């Protein structure tokens, strides 16, 4: 078993298309790393670089003590699950799973043993003689997983493996995936644009944007301490409220209401972020309160999402997520921004200040 390390990885297709600019990160044994980012941010390219399906323009890839940057895909001992599954259509399920073992000239007996083991583990015993076209989407996905697992590789790569499943199935397979990879003491790199997947599956999340690593942290920390404005806005649903505010008297002014800035020196402008679930109806003793007019209520079942126009700054809308049981009497509400849940970002660079 070995860890996976990317050192200053860069992939340049042309001066305008640089999907991976400079990415360094490390995935330890048994760690589940998710590459999270919007479509087109270079996630798949990063994964393909690791797999050796693309050659990096600069940088190195290490697996344990081996520099694999110049090795062929087949010599890296990496298994990958493709978004389209890439099952061989002319082979049966068993042949699909056995392909890599046959190519490595394992004995017939061992191949049969390992294929049976993994097929049993994934509940594919009944299907081993079928062709991929005779399987449902979920079954195909499991065959793709089985093909990766049977290899006992040094690294697992998965490129949006759940995106072709319907919503219900996706939730179930997500849970199965988590258990499956918990048992493997191998680095896993998982690509997704779905933050729920990233949050639930990973031990670490790498948020990518524009070919650069924005933040590399455990999912909880990504949520509570986004490293910059992009991460803050990308992670979390409904989206975090983000306001560019002017500062005066050690406070940022949200409309008519001063919000104290917890910094030794207060810049003239600052970005304030607060998640909708951290905005509550104010009680008498609360600080950090604002007032505004409700103009939209969206019911999400368990909660109501309120859109409120802030007094003194009609162009600013703050959204608050309130339990459905909470009632308010008037169109004008008083809200409190939970002080320990405020995020402060540099107005120019977007980096986290506090």
């Amino acid at each position: 078993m070995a860890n996976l390390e990317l050192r200053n990885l860069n992939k340049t297709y042309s001066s305008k298309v640089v999907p991976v600019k400079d990415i360094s990160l490390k995935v330890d044994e048994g760690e589940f790393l998710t590459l999270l980012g919007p479509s087109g941010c270079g996630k798949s390219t990063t994964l393909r670089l690791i797999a050796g399906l693309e050659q990096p323009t600069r940088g190195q890839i290490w697996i344990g003590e081996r520099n694999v940057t110049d090795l062929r895909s087949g010599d890296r001992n990496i298994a990958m699950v493709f978004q389209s599954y890439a099952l061989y259509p002319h082979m049966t399920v068993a042949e699909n799973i056995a392909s890599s073992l046959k190519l490595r000239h394992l004995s017939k007996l061992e191949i049969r043993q390992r294929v049976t083991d993994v097929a049993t583990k994934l509940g594919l015993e009944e299907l081993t003689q079928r062709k991929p076209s005779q399987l449902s989407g979920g079954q195909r996905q499991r065959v793709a997983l089985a093909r990766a697992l049977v290899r006992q590789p040094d690294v697992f790569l998965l490129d949006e493996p759940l995106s072709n499943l319907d919503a219900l199935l996706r939730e179930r397979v997500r849970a199965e995936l988590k258990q499956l990879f918990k048992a493997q003491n191998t680095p896993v790199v998982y690509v997704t644009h779905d933050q729920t997947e990233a949050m639930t599956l990973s031990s670490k999340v790498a948020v990518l944007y524009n070919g650069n690593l924005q933040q590399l942290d455990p999912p909880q920390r990504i949520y509570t301490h986004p490293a910059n404005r992009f991460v803050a806005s990308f992670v979390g649903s409904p989206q975090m409220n983000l306001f560019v505010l002017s500062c005066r008297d050690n406070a940022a002014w949200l409309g008519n209401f001063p919000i104290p800035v917890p910094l030794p020196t207060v810049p003239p402008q600052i970005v304030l972020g607060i998640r909708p679930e951290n905005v509550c109806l104010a009680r008498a003793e609360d600080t950090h309160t604002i007032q505004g007019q409700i103009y939209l209520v969206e019911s999400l079942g368990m909660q109501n999402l309120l859109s409120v126009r802030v007094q003194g700054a009609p162009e600013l809308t703050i959204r608050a997520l309130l339990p459905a049981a909470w009632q308010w009497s008037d169109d004008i509400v008083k809200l409190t921004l939970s002080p320990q849940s405020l995020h402060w970002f540099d107005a120019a660079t977007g980096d986290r200040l506090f």
Partner: protein
Amino acid sequence: MQLDKIQKREQLTGWMLTLPALLLLLLVFAYPIGQAFWLSLFTKNLATQLQPVYSGWNNYVRMVFDGRFWETMQNTTIFTCVSVFLELLLGMGIALVLNQSFPGRGIVRTIAILPWALPTALMALAWAWIFNDQYGVWNDILQRLGLIHTEINWLGEPSLAMMAAIAAEVWKTTPFISILLLAGLQSIPVELYEAHALDGANPWQSFWRITLPLLMPQILIALLFRFAQAFGVFDLVLVMTGGGPAGATETVSLYIYAMVMRYLDFGYGAALIVVTFLLLVAAVAIVSFLLSKARNSKF
């Protein structure tokens, strides 16, 4: 019960809708073939007699002892098998190259199909000149390279003439096969090769385990078309060698043509047609059977 009725009615509608096409096919195919079979049971030779005389299986018995028929059969078989084999090999190579992305691929693809678009008679004439012993380019090239010292009479020697005819045929129809195979290659997702590479395969293994099996339907279709066509080869050989020298390149269709048009022996000509037709049908049936098997194993 109800479902059965609906199914029956749908079947009936289906038959009714295909009936016009079937009738047309019957008229265009079955009638002439039936006519040929009927004719083959008569002795009808315009050169010696005017009235056809019923002679049963006589024409077929004659065929068994007709040395020239067996010779043309052999020529046709050699011509067909060798040229189809070479076309498949070359066509596969060209298709694999054209399937790679390189600058100017579109133009190369268009140029590659050109030989197929040329009229056979014209291109056969050109090849006859290329292989001409006195003025031919081929002899000239070989001499300049110092490979031969005296001119070779390509179209004048039995086995050389066959080789020349095969070369022309291969040149003309390889593009057809490569375009057919290229279409097949392009329908294979790149990810299959990537997955196979990750499985540890080298390009050679990928070719045998991914490309070839997934290309089998196209290969069989190409074989089907080419076997049927090459077996009936006529214009190319007629223009290049006229069947000579000494009948060394005479194919079945040339022989039938001579039998009917030169010797005016309609009855025997018809018998030859029927037998060739049956042989072709058998060949096509075998390939079709393989094709359906390949399809089933793929999906």
